[in-house]
Every structure is written in structure tokens, then in C-alpha cells.
């Protein structure tokens, strides 16, 4: 069995230089030589370079991610599989994860975002779960930047184009515009699936001799590791050999979803994994390795989209909509029949071995033969130096701006693309397919019912890079709090977290420091809410020409409510209801949209007391469960004044509000527009006001009835610098802000 792997005619010579061109450090190359005891073949070098890349190996982040809490009574699957899973009751497990597709989306926004959605969907249904909801978190450059409109249109079109075509509703998300992302946009995609507990599938292979099946689209030259193409000899042959952009085919994905879920029911699948990053290489090495086994594949059997792909290309291709399956021996035909039913072909391309080697054959030769653990598990791990930047984040906006008149400020904020209605975006997403969307995009969190159950799930994804730029720890804590609070506003108790950590180059000590502080913030907030982190993704190297993006941990929180009929939306419901405000601290203008727009120095972030945060969430959930809360809206960008206006924009019929701010604060710009104080605006029936007060005041939180809902559609805030505005007009500003900019106005 010990044939020595050979390089193929025409392949470049493998040496230190070639390794460097593949992005491997000299030490890493020497370690590879040591592991395999010889010079690697060109194919082997390519394979190591992708498996040991930051993206696949988490070599800079792994030791820090271990700090994250990943256990609770409800955790069914923590990190380590394709996605995490939480018990949501009535025999169901919620499987969920978020992932980045930042760089591909910058290069080709439509396909980049589309394939991002496709990839995260596969992570969910490989677990045997039916995908039931998607979310996305998007960061673009400033609206004035010449590429922003193109990128926005492409990314949103791609997310819709893919998600709508596979029949998974996109139920929530967030969009932000900031010059810090001009040259490096962020596209983070989340997917949630549901599976009966005990019917989950795994990516851990077992049973030497079990056949390995390739399913889905044929392999082309998509997304082959760019660095590997640096060799001139290799590139000369034809223009067509250049690494191609990955193009998604959502129709094939839809067939894969149905076929894989149906195939899972046969019980003939031992293990299954999608071919995501590093394609066939990662799936074929990780599955056997996690089961302590080896694998032998015959690359001639891999279905190809075009003739002439080399083993190197076959192994590194990132063509979309492909899965690798380990089947129970002798039951291949049964699985193949299921795939044929869905017009997909399942081809046996190899089998598991017990020698813990990863061995690839092509045209009668062995082209790679590597100890399997070296690929999947034994990549180098780094403890990269971290250091706080010497000068605390530069106060970019030192020019002291002027506080505008309150009513003008409110309109300017409602007109800011960061605050304005994102309807232009989510109108392009099917948010209702599958008939579970109780609350879709437009309210604080999405609410999905579980059919044949009273239970429901609430979801939200958030990030706050401006706060993270001021203080990466506090910013991360605040982001988790915000997502959890949104879910609690809907009436659900947060039970699980997934995260996508977007940072710059980890080889910079300041970036590494930001990252570590971010992880610590995530850890502390997760512990405080008893909501473990069950899955996630790290995206480093988000920088262009030496300018890293602000630290951007994107946090998605999953909540559960026992009775879907008790869910709460953000909109005021009935005239006469009392409007109350609950908060854990006094707000500030630090990292606020107000400070950004008017060039005000916002000062320092509000400190966060996690015990009070947890109490606020508990109060919201209890209030909803007892049916005491008629509406709840989290105060986020734009502060209290914006939150009040948004609560008036009830899509069924707009309402008004009469509020006296002196009753809760000094009624200055900080009270109107300050952020960061974990504040919620509630509306409650007058007769319940005392009971609601005891829910919050009894937990030591600040609670104040500040006004009431009125039928007259006006927003009246009585204060020294108060306002009295027409709600319909405000809503017009709010709804037209993004379309107007896209029409080219302004």
C-alpha cells in the first residue's frame, strides 16, 4: 500500500519559495516536511496550504475561542460540528450558525452574497435539520462612496436571489453604512434549522470500508486558492485556468436540501459534510479524522464540469452545492435512489480505511498520502502577541460640532440610512415562506412559530462596531446585550448564541488585542445570560491598504417562548396605553448615531452591569408571559426619540405619543438621542402599570411611566427643547431615506 506519491509532469517544483507563494510560513513548511518525512508533492503542498490557512485552521483564534462557554442544560451540540444545536422543547432542536462571506462579496457582490447564503444553509442541513429561517448582517461603506450603491444592490439581490429560490424565509437582519467599510464590506449570513432531537446527523465518520459518496454539482475551477496560482508556468496554459468566481445555483441547493433530508431518513448515512472552504479536501479529511480513521479517494471518479482539471484543482475547488457522504456499506444503492429521485447523482469516489492516512489516487498514481490528523487537526496554533494601542482610539471627530434643534435632529436621524427603514432591503426577501413567520422583518426580533406546538423561537442579529472601536470589550458585551434584549422584547428568553468575529489582520498586536477583548466580552455576556455560544466563525484580515475595519463581532441570539400567542411587537397598539421606559443606566452620546451625524464628541461608553442586564431581560420575558406588555421596543441607534417615533409607525395604523421627558432625565440631547443604556420603551394598559413597575423596579431597575399613546398621529415630547411632530411626516422621512438616495436624490 505504500506507494510514494508523485508530482505530475508540468507541475511546479515544490520548495520554500513555492510554499511561501502558497501563503505558508517557512516554519510551517518545515513542519510539513517533518510530518510527511519528505518533500511534499505539489498537490500535497496545495492541500496543506488551504487546511493550514487561517480560514480553515483557526490557528490564531482557537486558543481564545476555548474561553467561550458552550454548555448548558439545553445544549444538544456545541462547537465542533457544522453547526451548534439547542433544545427548544417539544422534542425539537434548533440548529444554527452564522458565517462570513466578506471578501467574495466585495469582489462580486451578487454571487458572493448568494454563495454565502448557500454555504450557511449547507452547514445547517448537513446536521439533518430543515433550514427554517435566515438572517444577515451587512456593513457597507458610506452611502456617498461611489461603489456603495453597486455593492448594496448586488449583495441584497444575491441574498434574495438565493434565499428566495431555496424557500427559506429571511426574517431579520441589520444593515449599516460607515466609511470604515468603504474598502472592506461585511456580509455575515445566519441560518437556523429545526430537527427532531435524536435525528441529528453528524460529520464524524466511522466504519473502515464504508463507501464515500460525492453528491451535487460537478467540480469546476471555482475559487481555487488564489495564492496557489502564483506560478507562471502553471498559469501560462490558458486564461481559463485563472481562479474563477464561485457562482451559486440555488435550484441545485434546493434539490440537495430535499434529497439530503430524505436520505437522512433512510438511516444509511454514517456521516455527511458539505464541501465548503477547501472543498473536497476539508470534507474528506475532517470526517474520517474526527472518527479516528483514514480515507482513500479515486479522483478520476469525481464528476467534473469541464475536462482537464488536475488533482490539485479537483481537491482545492470551491464549486458550490456539493456534499460528501459516508454511507453504511452495502446501502449505497438505497441512497443513490433517493438522489436520483431528486435528479441528483451520488457517485462512490472512495472508501474509509483504518490506517489514518489521507490518500488520493489519480490515473493510477498516488498523488497525495498524508497522515490525516496533520490536515484536519494538527495545524499550527499561534498565541499571537496582543497589545492595546498606545493612544486610545483616535478621536476622529475632535471638531466640536453644534447641537442642532431637537426636531431637526430627529428628522436628520430618521433620515440616516443607519436608522431609516430597511424596507427597501427586506422587501426583496421572501420572509413568509414555510408559513411560520409570526413577526418578520421590521420589528425588534423575528418570531417563528413551531408548527404543532405552542412554542416559538425569536431571533436577532446585531453588531456595534462604533462602540467596539471605542472599547472592544465593552462593545462586544453591549452587542450581546442588544441582541438578547431584542429577543426578550419579543417575549422570548435568550438560550443560545452564535457569532461571527470580523477583525483585521491578527498579526498586528492591536488587532489581536481587539479580538481577545471581543472574545472576553462575548464570554462574559454569554455567562450572564446563561446563553452558551454553540457555533460561530472568525473572519480575520478584513483590511485594505493597512486600514483594518473597526472590530465587528456580529452576534446572533436565539430565544424561546413557551406560548407563541404571548409574543410582543415593537409598535404601540392602543390609544390610552401608558408609555413606560425601563433602563439599566443613564445613556450617553458615545458611539451614537447622533454624535456621528453632528460631529459631536460623544465621550465615553456607558459601563455595563451584566447583572442588571440579565434582570432587565428576565423582567421583559416575565411581563410578556403574563400578558402585561402590549409593545416593547429596544432603544438603539438614535436614542429614545427615535425609538418613540418607530413605535408609532404601526404598519396597521399609525398612532401618536405624548411624552414628558423631564420625568426621566434632564431632557437634553443625551436624553433624547443618547444610546448605550440598555433602554426599552414599553406600552402597557393603564391598569397594568403598577404590576409592570414592580416587575422592573422590583429588580432594581429604573422604571418610569413617561406618557401615553394617543390616537392623534403626533409625536409630542414635552421638555425644554421639546417637539411636536406629525408622525406621518416622520414616517415618510424614515421610509424614503434609502430609496431617495438610491434614486440619486441628494
Amino acid at each position, binding site marked *: 500500500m505504500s506507494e510514494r506519491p508523485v508530482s505530475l509532469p508540468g507541475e511546479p517544483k515544490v520548495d520554500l519559495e513555492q510554499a511561501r507563494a502558497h501563503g505558508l510560513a517557512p516554519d510551517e513548511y518545515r513542519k510539513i516536511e517533518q510530518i510527511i518525512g519528505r518533500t511534499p508533492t505539489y498537490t500535497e503542498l496545495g492541500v496543506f496550504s488551504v487546511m493550514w490557512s487561517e480560514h480553515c485552521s483557526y490557528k490564531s483564534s482557537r486558543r481564545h475561542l476555548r474561553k467561550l462557554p458552550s454548555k448548558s442544560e439545553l445544549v444538544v451540540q456545541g462547537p465542533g460540528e457544522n453547526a451548534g444545536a439547542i433544545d427548544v422543547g417539544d422534542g425539537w432542536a434548533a440548529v444554527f450558525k452564522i458565517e462570513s462571506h466578506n471578501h467574495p462579496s466585495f469582489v462580486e457582490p451578487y454571487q458572493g452574497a448568494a454563495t454565502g447564503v448557500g454555504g450557511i444553509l449547507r452547514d445547517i442541513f448537513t446536521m439533518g435539520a430543515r433550514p427554517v429561517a435566515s438572517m444577515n448582517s451587512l456593513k457597507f461603506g458610506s452611502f456617498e462612496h461611489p461603489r456603495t450603491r453597486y455593492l448594496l444592490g448586488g449583495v441584497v439581490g444575491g441574498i434574495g*436571489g438565493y434565499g*428566495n*429560490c431555496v424557500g427559506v424565509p429571511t426574517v431579520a437582519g441589520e444593515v449599516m453604512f460607515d466609511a470604515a467599510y468603504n474598502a472592506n464590506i461585511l456580509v455575515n449570513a445566519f441560518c437556523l434549522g429545526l430537527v427532531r432531537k435524536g435525528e441529528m446527523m453528524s460529520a464524524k465518520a466511522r466504519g473502515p470500508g464504508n463507501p464515500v459518496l460525492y453528491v451535487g454539482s460537478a467540480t469546476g475551477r471555482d475559487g481555487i486558492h488564489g495564492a496557489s496560482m502564483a506560478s507562471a508556468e502553471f498559469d501560462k496554459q490558458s486564461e481559463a485556468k485563472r481562479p474563477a468566481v464561485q457562482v451559486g445555483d440555488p435550484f441545485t441547493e434546493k434539490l440537495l436540501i430535499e434529497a439530503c433530508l430524505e436520505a437522512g431518513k433512510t438511516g444509511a448515512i454514517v456521516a455527511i459534510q458539505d464541501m465548503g472552504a477547501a472543498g473536497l479536501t476539508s470534507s474528506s479529511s475532517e470526517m474520517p479524522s474526527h472518527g479516528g480513521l483514514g480515507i482513500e479517494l479515486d479522483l478520476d471518479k469525481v464528476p467534473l464540469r469541464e475536462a482537464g482539471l488536475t488533482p490539485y484543482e479537483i481537491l482545492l475547488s470551491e464549486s458550490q452545492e456539493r456534499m460528501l457522504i459516508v454511507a453504511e456499506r452495502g446501502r449505497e444503492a438505497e441512497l443513490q435512489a433517493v438522489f436520483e429521485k431528486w435528479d441528483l447523482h451520488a457517485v462512490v469516489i472512495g472508501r474509509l480505511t483504518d490506517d489514518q492516512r489521507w490518500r488520493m489516487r489519480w490515473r493510477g498514481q498516488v498523488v497525495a498520502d498524508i497522515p490525516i490528523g496533520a490536515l484536519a487537526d494538527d495545524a499550527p496554533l499561534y498565541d499571537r502577541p496582543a497589545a492595546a494601542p498606545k493612544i486610545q482610539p483616535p478621536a476622529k471627530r475632535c471638531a466640536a460640532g453644534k447641537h442642532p434643534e431637537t426636531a431637526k435632529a430627529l428628522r436628520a436621524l430618521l433620515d440616516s440610512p443607519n436608522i431609516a427603514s430597511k424596507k427597501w432591503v427586506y422587501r426583496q426577501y421572501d420572509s413568509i415562506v414555510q408559513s411560520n413567520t409570526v413577526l418578520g422583518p421590521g420589528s425588534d426580533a423575528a418570531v417563528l412559530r413551531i408548527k404543532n406546538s405552542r412554542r416559538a423561537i425569536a431571533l436577532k442579529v446585531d453588531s456595534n462596531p462604533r462602540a467596539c472601536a471605542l472599547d472592544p470589550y465593552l462593545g462586544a458585551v453591549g452587542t450581546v446585550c442588544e441582541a438578547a434584549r431584542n429577543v426578550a422584547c419579543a417575549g422570548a428568553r435568550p438560550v443560545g448564541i452564535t457569532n461571527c468575529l470580523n477583525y483585521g489582520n491578527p498579526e498586528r498586536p492591536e488587532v489581536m488585542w481587539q479580538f481577545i477583548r471581543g472574545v472576553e466580552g462575548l464570554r462574559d455576556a454569554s455567562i450572564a445570560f446563561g446563553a452558551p455560544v454553540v457555533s460561530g466563525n472568525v473572519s480575520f484580515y478584513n483590511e485594505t491598504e493597512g486600514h483594518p475595519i473597526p472590530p465587528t463581532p456580529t452576534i446572533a441570539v436565539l430565544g424561546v417562548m413557551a406560548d407563541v400567542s404571548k409574543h410582543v411587537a415593537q409598535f404601540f397598539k392602543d390609544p390610552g396605553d401608558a408609555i413606560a421606559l425601563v433602563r439599566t443606566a443613564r445613556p450617553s452620546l458615545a458611539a451614537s448615531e447622533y454624535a456621528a451625524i453632528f460631529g459631536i464628541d460623544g465621550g465615553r461608553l456607558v459601563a455595563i452591569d451584566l447583572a442588571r442586564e440579565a434582570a432587565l431581560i428576565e423582567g421583559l420575558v416575565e411581563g410578556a408571559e403574563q400578558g402585561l406588555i402590549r409593545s416593547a421596543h429596544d432603544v438603539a441607534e438614535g436614542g429614545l426619540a427615535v425609538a418613540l417615533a418607530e413605535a408609532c409607525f404601526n404598519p396597521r395604523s399609525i398612532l401618536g405619543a405624548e411624552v414628558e421627558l423631564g420625568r426621566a432625565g434632564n431632557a437634553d440631547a443625551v436624553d433624547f438621542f443618547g444610546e448605550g443604556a440598555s433602554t426599552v420603551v414599553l406600552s402597557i394598559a393603564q391598569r397594568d402599570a403598577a404590576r409592570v413597575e414592580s416587575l422592573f423596579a422590583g429588580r432594581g431597575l429604573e422604571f418610569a411611566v413617561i406618557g401615553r399613546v394617543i390616537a392623534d398621529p403626533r409625536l409630542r415630547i414635552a421638555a425644554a427643547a421639546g417637539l411636536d411632530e406629525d408622525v406621518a411626516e416622520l414616517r415618510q422621512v424614515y421610509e424614503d431615506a434609502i430609496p431617495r438616495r438610491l434614486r440619486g436624490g441628494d
Partner: protein
Amino acid sequence: MKWGVVRFPGSLDDGDSLYAIADVMGQDARMLWHKDESLGGVECVLLPGGFSYGDYLRTGAIARFSPIMKSVAKFAADGGLVIGICNGFQILCEAHLLPGALTRNRSLSFICERVWLRVENASTPFTRAAKQGDLLRLPIKHGEGLYVAPEDEIRQMEERGQVILRYVDAGGRESDAANPNGSMRAIAGVANQRFNVFGLMPHPEHAVEAMLGGVDGLKIFQSIAGSAR
């Protein structure tokens, strides 16, 4: 009444349609597979929304040739009730079981939102539970719902009462702003000359439960249920 919902590869609202008819309405409904030719003795065939065969080339263009569509055409020719929702409507037009065609929304983007519709003809098997002029609140979700047909054909269709649903505003008036996709004459749903085949872009199956935003879609399904031969 016995209903059959056709599942094409790429159908998306097939399960939701079955759920609306069987679970919410309590009717006898089953799934039909595109590769089969048998309709299993159903009395109404529903072609659901989605992206059949990926909707590549033109929406509905490829689904039209699937084996089951031969039987559906025969069934319709014999007077059987056929309703096509969204992609189902597109397939029926491509199959020439309904006049006209559906092309890209004038905004060129996909639109998912609730709209108002006016019932233009309440004497069909698909609308008899409504009254002439009734307003229905239903969701739309499509990228290619702009209804087109030659002018004179549309005139004839209107004279014959084949235009069944029209996009209007909350007050029941036609206006450009209330026409979400730019359809000619704000047409949202049409029937064939025999009034046994009906296609519409809005989704009645997504408006059958108050908790999910409204129940106006039930009117369509109740009409059909009450039209059993």
C-alpha cells in the same frame, strides 16, 4: 373535495398550500409528483409557488413540459378545476392554459409584501365565496409578476369577465402606486374562458391564519371547496 398539490423540483409553497388546505381547512389534500402522470382522482389541482426547475430561461417555461402537466392539461380540458399560484400562474401561462405571460417586475426586483386586491368577478368557482368588489389583503412575493397580454386580448378578457383580481389601494381604487409590479391594467389574477382554470400572483395560502397576518386567502379556498362537482 379532493385536492392535489403538484410538487415540482424547486416548488417552495407546496407544503404551505397543503398545510392551508389540509391542516387549516380540514380538506382532503395530497401531494402530486411532477414525474407522475396520474392525478390520483383529485377534483382540484393546485400548482404552487416557487422556482420550478430553477425558473431558468423563463419562469414556468421548463415545468410546463413535466409529465404531470400533460395530465393537468387534459384534466383542464375536461373541465377540472385548476388553480396556479405565483409560479403556478406562470406555468399555466407558459402551458397556454391561461392567456398572457408574466415578466419581470418593473422595479426589476423581487417584492415581498401584503397588497390589496379587488375581486372583479365573484361568479367564478374560485371567487364565489366573495362578493363583487370585495377587497382581499394577500401577500405577494415574486420577481416576475408583471402581467402582459396583447391589448385587444385584454379587452376581450375584460369583457368576458376573465380578469378576476386587480391590485388596488386600501380604499379599493386603482392607482399606479397600488400596482406593485406594473402589471397591465393592474391585473393580479385571470381565468380561462371556461372559468375552470385560474392563475394569480398573490398567495392565498399565506393568508389563512390570523396569527400570520390575515385570513383573506380562505375566501379563495372556500370558493373552490364549495364548487365541488
